[in-house]
């Protein structure tokens, strides 16, 4: 049986963030959580592998207690297990520490793993660093940004299109892949999946102590990077603001900026609707 671990993350719904531009603060606690879109693709890749061979899918996430929601979602979609790594002392971990915590879990609790699948980058921080760093921490090979994976016994073959190169690569398991944002379009939740999740609603919850971290462990403090300032992007362009009915706005746009637009297009434009040349 192929043991697959899928690393997923709960992220705020970015476009809906309650963000105060005056104070430059983000009301994170008000932001509704969802499963990160790249994580959903990672899970989808695992589910498709499981369609063709005997596999066990363990979905793991690190986050606050509320992140348990996405594990239920993952199980409803077809994951066999859900594991939540949660502890106040894990908060504030940078990618170095996050990957180390995930690695600890995998090594201590799941030593017989074959394949780790991550999304290429989460929608909230987009570093794309946790996957490669997790592989390094586990001492296994990794291939990023893949579009296609096939598992043959103890090896995987993958395809990807990176930096304008279309590549086919293979590696022996255990190994890690990250799924490109263009691949493995996630499925919708099927009703039978929801029922299955209810039959087996258990989520394992694991804290820092269970992972063998000592009393001094503090992810925020132990992370090599430190955030020293956070600010809102400011823009103070002297600009022209046009308001009114759409028809009038479009006319005004061409009246005032027709030359700029026409030169950008490389085409002549009639300066006025009715003029004849």
């Amino acid at each position: 049986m192929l043991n697959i671990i899928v690393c997923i993350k709960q992220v705020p719904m970015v476009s809906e963030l309650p963000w105060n531009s005056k104070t430059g603060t983000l009301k994170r606690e008000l932001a509704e959580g969802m499963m990160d879109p790249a994580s959903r693709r990672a899970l989808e890749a695992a589910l498709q592998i499981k369609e063709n061979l005997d596999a066990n899918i363990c979905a793991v996430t690190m986050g606050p207690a509320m992140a348990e929601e996405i594990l239920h979602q993952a199980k409803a979609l077809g994951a066999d297990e859900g594991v939540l790594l949660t502890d106040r002392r894990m908060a504030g971990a940078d990618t170095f520490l996050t990957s180390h915590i995930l690695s600890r879990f995998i090594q201590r609790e799941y030593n017989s793993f074959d394949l780790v699948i991550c999304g290429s980058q989460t929608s909230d921080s987009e570093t794309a660093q946790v996957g490669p760093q997790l592989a390094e921490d586990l001492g296994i090979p990794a291939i990023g940004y893949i579009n296609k994976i096939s598992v043959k016994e103890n090896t995987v073959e993958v395809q990807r299109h990176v930096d304008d190169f279309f590549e086919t690569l293979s590696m022996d398991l255990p190994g890690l892949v990250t799924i490109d944002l263009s691949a493995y379009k996630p499925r919708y939740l099927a009703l039978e999946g929801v029922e299955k999740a209810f039959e087996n609603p258990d989520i394992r919850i694991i804290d820092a102590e269970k992972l063998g971290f000592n009393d001094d462990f503090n992810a925020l403090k132990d992370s090599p990077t430190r955030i020293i300032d956070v600010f809102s992007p400011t823009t103070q362009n002297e600009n022209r603001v046009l308001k009114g009915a759409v028809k009038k706005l479009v006319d005004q746009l061409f009246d005032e900026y027709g030359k700029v637009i026409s030169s950008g297009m490389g085409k002549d434009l009639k300066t006025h609707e009715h003029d004849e040349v």
Partner: protein
Amino acid sequence: MKSAKDIWVFGDYRNYFQNRVTLQILARAVDLATTTGGKVCAVVFGHNVNNYVAEYIAHGAQKVYVVDDERLSLYSLETYSRLLTRLAKEYKPETILVGATRFGQEMAPRVAKQLGTGLTADCIDLEIDKKGILVQIAPSFGGNLIAKIITPVQKPQMATIRPGTFQEQPHDDNAIGETIILPLPKDLPEDRIRLISSEYRPAKKQKIEDADIVICGGRGMGSKGKFKKLFDLACLMNAEVGATRPVVYSEWISHEALVGQAGKNIKPKILMSFGISGAIQHTAALTDADFIIAINKNPNATMMKMADVAIVADANQVCLGIIKALKEKIRD
């Protein structure tokens, strides 16, 4: 031998675009080194790479570490990352900067982990603080904010840099630099990843990065069907269509069209921005646009503040209005 204040720039040259990124970072490293006092060094791995060594010196590298070996002729993540780690342990640079190309984004995290140091992804600026520490400036919290990040204790300080962030220096044939040629260590572990095939397949012809007019659409377009009207407009204007992350995630358009972090940087003569609020991941990719026309119902959106012309209206309606007007105005 030890070079405690040096700034290293990874020589990423696999295609034209990646090489430009290396030159851009070299230019910034030269600025930073005037404050820190260290040398700017390029690190080049490959086979028959003398032309890149010369190019990096002409663009500001005072020293180039080169490992030139037939076995390095193809980019290899495992070998390159182990090699960079080994050189960094030996020569102890203060800072390592890597372009945020796909390769750089995969290699730098592994090197940082091997070296036990921090790494900031996709920086949009770099500064040196009063203590001489590298301040790495990067989008954060879903692009709504910008964070200043440091690696206060561990060395080297590492960052990947978004392509297009800095301006490369002019080529200077008279520049002088030292070249340090190193052998490929014999005891590097074998690569665990096997390359079965690799084919250079550049993306479609008129790339959005080079387009004179770019039309970008955001969620404010309303729906996938309405978003498609932007292609009609693009067709009339000889423009390329770009999109924000929420649009790409909603699958209104393929990921190829993403403008901003994890996507493309653009430098059009005209940018038309429809229904985009302006998260920093997106707007940081627009700094080289000459003229911005933004359309949004919300006059306070960041994108509207950035624009030269801000049209307060429904993005979809204005799109349709411009299409209609252009059909009348374009001379046959």
